[in-house]
C-alpha cells in the first residue's frame, strides 16, 4: 500500500504531481486503433490508458431487446485485472456495472438513436491502466470511437472531473487526490449544445463549491474537446494522405 501523503497542495499552491489547481494532466488520443471494430479510440490521460471500441449498428442479441423505433445502445466498462495496484478480479464488479450504466446514459443523448431501429450498438471500454478519472477518460474515448464508426451524432461527448482537495477546488483529480481529497465531481457534456449528460459527485461540498467545481469541470471539458476533435481529424488526414500517395503511384 502507498502511504497517505500528508499534504496534497504545497506552499506554492502546486499539487503532488506539480500541477496548478486548474491544470489538466497531459492528454493524448488516437482514433482507429482496433482494426476489427467499426470504430475505436485509445486515450492516455495522465497515467490512465484506455481503449474504447464500437461494434454496430448490428443485429440485436438477445432478440427480444430490439426496439421498433430506436437502436439499443449497450455499454461495457471494464477494468483489466492489472490496471490497479492490487489485482482486480476480472469479473464485473458492482462499480463497473454502475459505471457502464452511467456511461451509456452519457452517450445516448449524442446519438441519433431513431436512425437505426431494430439494431444494437455495442460500446466496449477496457481500462488497461487506471489513475483516477477513468470514467471521464472512458466517455471521451468512447464518443470518439462512436464518431469513428460513422454513427451520426449531435456532438462529441467529452468528460472531465473537478473536485476538492484541502479546501481548494481543483481540476482533474488523479488517484491519490481522489482517495484522500474531499470531493470528486465528474461531468460529461456535449459542449456545442451546452448539455450535461453525466454528473456525479461524492464527498462534501457547499452549494458554492459545487457550482465552482461544475464550472471548472465544464472549462476542462472544453479544453479536452479541442484535443478530441484534433484526434478525430488526424485519422482522416492520414487516410487522405494515403489515398493521395496511392493516386500518385498510379499516375507514375
Amino acid at each position: 500500500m502507498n502511504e497517505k501523503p500528508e499534504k496534497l497542495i504545497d506552499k506554492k499552491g502546486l499539487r503532488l504531481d506539480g500541477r496548478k489547481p486548474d491544470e489538466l494532466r497531459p492528454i493524448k488520443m488516437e482514433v482507429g486503433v482496433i482494426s476489427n471494430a467499426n470504430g475505436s479510440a485509445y486515450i492516455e490521460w495522465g497515467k490512465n490508458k484506455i481503449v474504447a471500441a464500437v461494434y454496430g449498428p448490428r443485429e440485436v442479441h438477445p432478440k427480444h431487446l430490439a426496439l421498433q423505433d430506436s437502436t439499443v445502445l449497450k455499454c461495457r466498462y471494464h477494468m483489466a485485472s492489472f490496471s490497479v495496484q492490487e489485482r482486480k478480479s476480472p469479473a464485473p464488479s458492482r462499480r463497473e456495472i454502475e459505471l457502464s450504466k452511467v456511461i451509456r446514459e452519457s452517450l445516448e443523448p449524442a446519438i441519433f438513436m431513431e436512425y437505426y431501429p431494430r439494431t444494437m450498438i455495442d460500446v466496449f471500454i477496457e481500462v488497461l491502466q487506471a489513475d483516477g478519472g477513468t470514467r471521464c477518460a472512458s466517455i471521451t474515448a468512447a464518443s470518439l470511437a462512436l464518431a469513428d464508426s460513422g454513427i451520426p451524432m449531435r456532438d462529441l461527448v467529452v468528460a472531465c472531473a473537478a473536485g476538492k482537495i484541502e479546501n481548494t477546488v481543483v481540476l482533474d483529480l488523479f488517484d491519490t487526490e481522489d482517495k484522500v481529497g474531499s470531493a470528486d465531481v465528474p461531468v460529461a457534456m456535449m459542449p456545442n449544445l451546452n448539455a450535461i449528460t453525466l454528473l456525479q459527485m461524492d464527498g462534501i461540498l457547499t452549494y458554492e463549491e459545487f457550482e465552482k467545481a461544475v464550472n471548472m469541470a465544464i472549462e476542462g471539458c472544453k479544453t479536452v474537446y479541442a484535443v478530441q476533435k484534433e484526434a478525430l481529424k488526424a485519422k482522416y488526414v492520414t487516410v487522405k494522405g494515403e489515398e493521395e500517395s496511392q493516386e500518385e503511384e498510379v499516375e507514375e
Partner: protein
Amino acid sequence: MSVITKVKRRQIEQLIEKNSRLDGRGPLEYREMKLEQGLIERAEGSARVLLGKTEVVVGTKIETGEPFPDTPNEGVLTVNAELVPFASPGYEPGPPDENSIELARIVDRGIRESKMIDTEKLVIEPGKKVFVVFVDVYVLNYDGNLIDASALAAVAALSNTKMPKYEIEEGEIKIKSGYEQLPLRKHPITVTCAKIGNKLLVDPWLEEEQVMDARISFAIDDDGNICAIQKGGSGFLEPSQVFEAAKIAKEKAKELRKKVNW
C-alpha cells in the same frame, strides 16, 4: 418510447406548463410521505417508507467481520437493494440488475459520503475485527422515485439500529446481552428532480419517470451541504438546470428534514 407514452408525455408537458401534474401536485410538491420505524423485530434496525404508492422496507443487520485493508480503523458498510418481483410487472427474479445496483450505490454514497455512521467506533480490534453494517433495501411497490424513498428508509433504519454490546475476554470477543445505539453523526436526505421538456419537478411518480428526459439526485446533509449526486436517464441537463436542481434539492431536503424531525 411507445405511441402511448408519447401521447402521455405531451399531456404531462402541457400540464407542467400550467404548473400542474397528472396527480394534481405542483412541480415542487412531494407526494404524501409516511415513515414507520422498528417494524421488523428480528432486524437490528428497520424502517418502512411510503411515498405515495411507492413502498420500501429497509432492514439492517450487524455482524462481525474483517475491515478493508486500506481502512483498518473503520467498520464496514454494505448496502444492497432488492427489487422484489411483485413490486412491478417489469421486475423479474434473479441476480441484481444494473438498476438495483445503481439504486444501492446511490443510497450507499449518501450514507458514506455524509459520514453518517461513525465507523471508527465500530472497530473491535484494529485491522482484524470490526462490525459490519448491512443495509438491505427491499422495494415492495414501485410507483416512481425509488431513490428518495430508499435513501430515506435506509437512513431511518440506521437511526433505529441497535449495536450488540461486547467485551474481550482473553483475546476472544464475547457478545454480551443488551444493545446500544449505532453511533451516528448525520442524517442525509436525498432529493430527486426529474427533467421533462425544459421543466424540473421533484419526486417523479411512475408515469413521469416513464417519460422523463433525465433525473438528478442530490444527497444533502444536516448542514445543507451536498454529499452525493447522481444524474440518470438518457437525456441531458443544461448547466443552469443542474444549479437550479441543486437549489431545489437543498430547500426540499430542509422541508423533509422538518417532517421527519432529523
